């Protein structure tokens, strides 16, 4: 356990350092979701809140949920891209030749991503508050909202790592980002699912896992502590995370031919 802790620290540190030494990557992690937030809030804020049954009078609060789903989506690029680069540069072989366990490597990589997601969450909340958003679940709820962003980052970051190990290239993993972004546009990002008028779109949003990863933190912001969206978010996240984790661990084991 001592060895595990000693290894994971520098690995996590490396992951954080690598992220922050690429300023465009850091900027993209903050600027793009805030543009998306501003664009959605500005475009729909006045019209959507007048719809009968809309759950809050503050669209700034409602739309803030999408930034926490974005934190997860961005983690695919961040975690997957870093592992993909390691595969391309051969650095992964260096890691495979050490005493490092596959789970330790994965956790080390995710620690950096989680750290970044917490930072993103804090900034997103601060911007949301500045635009008039609130957290219905209170101060404790605000922490859980940020934690949910980190949970999304772990879930989708693992998918990114899995893809990077399978494809072996950071650039290929970057190709996943538009796919996830497309999924985000096809989710309940703009309106609650029950208010989506087009039946076909409501069906897509209902089957889209990202809707649930977004609705969980949003429920804390908009309605307070309600177990159903939170549980659904956790369940959907776990159903993505566990297979991705198993696949990743298998790929990492195969890399270092452990017997």
């Amino acid at each position, binding site marked *: 356990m001592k060895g595990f802790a000693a290894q994971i620290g520098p690995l996590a540190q490396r992951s954080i350092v690598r992220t922050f030494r690429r300023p465009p990557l850091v900027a993209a992690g903050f600027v793009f979701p805030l543009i998306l937030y501003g664009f959605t809030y*500005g*475009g729909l804020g006045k019209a959507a809140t007048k719809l009968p049954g809309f759950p809050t009078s503050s669209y700034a609060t409602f739309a803030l949920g999408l930034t926490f789903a974005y934190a997860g989506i961005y983690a695919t690029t961040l975690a997957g891209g870093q592992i993909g680069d390691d595969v391309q540069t051969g650095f992964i072989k260096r890691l495979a030749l050490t005493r490092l366990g596959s789970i330790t490597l994965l956790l080390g990589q995710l620690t950096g991503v989680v750290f970044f997601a917490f930072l993103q969450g804090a900034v997103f909340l601060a911007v949301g508050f500045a635009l008039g958003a609130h957290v219905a679940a209170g101060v404790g709820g605000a922490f859980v909202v940020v934690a949910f962003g980190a949970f999304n980052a772990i879930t989708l970051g693992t998918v990114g790592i899995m893809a990077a190990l399978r494809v072996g290239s950071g650039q290929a993993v970057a190709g996943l980002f*538009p796919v996830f972004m497309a999924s985000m*546009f096809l989710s309940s990002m703009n309106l609650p699912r029950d208010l989506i008028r*087009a039946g076909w779109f409501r069906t897509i*949003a209902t089957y889209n896992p990202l809707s649930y990863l977004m609705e969980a933190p949003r429920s804390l912001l908009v309605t307070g502590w309600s177990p159903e969206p939170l549980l659904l978010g956790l369940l959907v996240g776990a159903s993505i995370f566990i297979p991705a984790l198993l696949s990743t661990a298998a790929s990492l084991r195969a890399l270092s031919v452990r017997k």
Partner: protein
Amino acid sequence: MTSSDLSIMIGVARRQAIRTFTTPQLVIPLVLFPLLLFTAFVGSASAIAKNPNFDYYDYTAFEFVYVLMQSAASAGVATGIAVAQDFESGFARRMLVATPRRSVLLGGIVLAGIIQQLWLAAVLLVVALAAGMSIHGSAIEVIGMFGLALLFNIAGTLYASGVAFRAQTTQVGPALQLPILLPLFFAPVYAPRKLLTHWLHEVANWNPVTPLLEAGRGLLAGAPVSVAIAFGIVGGAGVLLAVFAFTGLRRVERA
């Protein structure tokens, strides 16, 4: 322009178009992104049309115009990125060496952007009509709307080519897209200007893309508004960006 210039221009455009349409990595995002936006906007936010202050005749048509303009700009940017790729691969040098009058190359690049845009507009129109969009404008008005999109596309191509000539690397891709995408985002996308949140309303009032969208929507609805302003903005931008692109090309020639 001599017949030789014209044949070079067509040759450049043809090569560019063939390259785009036969490379899945290029053509799929080009067509998929606007279609996705169209699906997402129409599907997710059509309830907005129930707002009593929403005074456009059809939400699908309302979003069609936005996506048409957005795809026009994106096609232009994609053409510019292809130019940057040519510089990275060294192919641009080959073209520069082989062409007596290099400004003709720029004509070919613009023509390639136009071909891409016409094709993209046709795909979008078919999809929108299949999704139940109705057209209230006359044939002239509709042609005017597509003409506006075409000019926007040319301006986008000239801008992106100018950047590509100067940077000569595809790494400028994101920086290339941002100045185009930002004005497109902070415009009346989901709802008419009067339904925008206060701060976005203020931004949209100053955003040059706003008259473009409103003129396009007006033409499609058969109730033209700010058409002259829109053509003036996009035409003026086209002239300025042509200068930007030509000076970029000159810089390449001098290097």
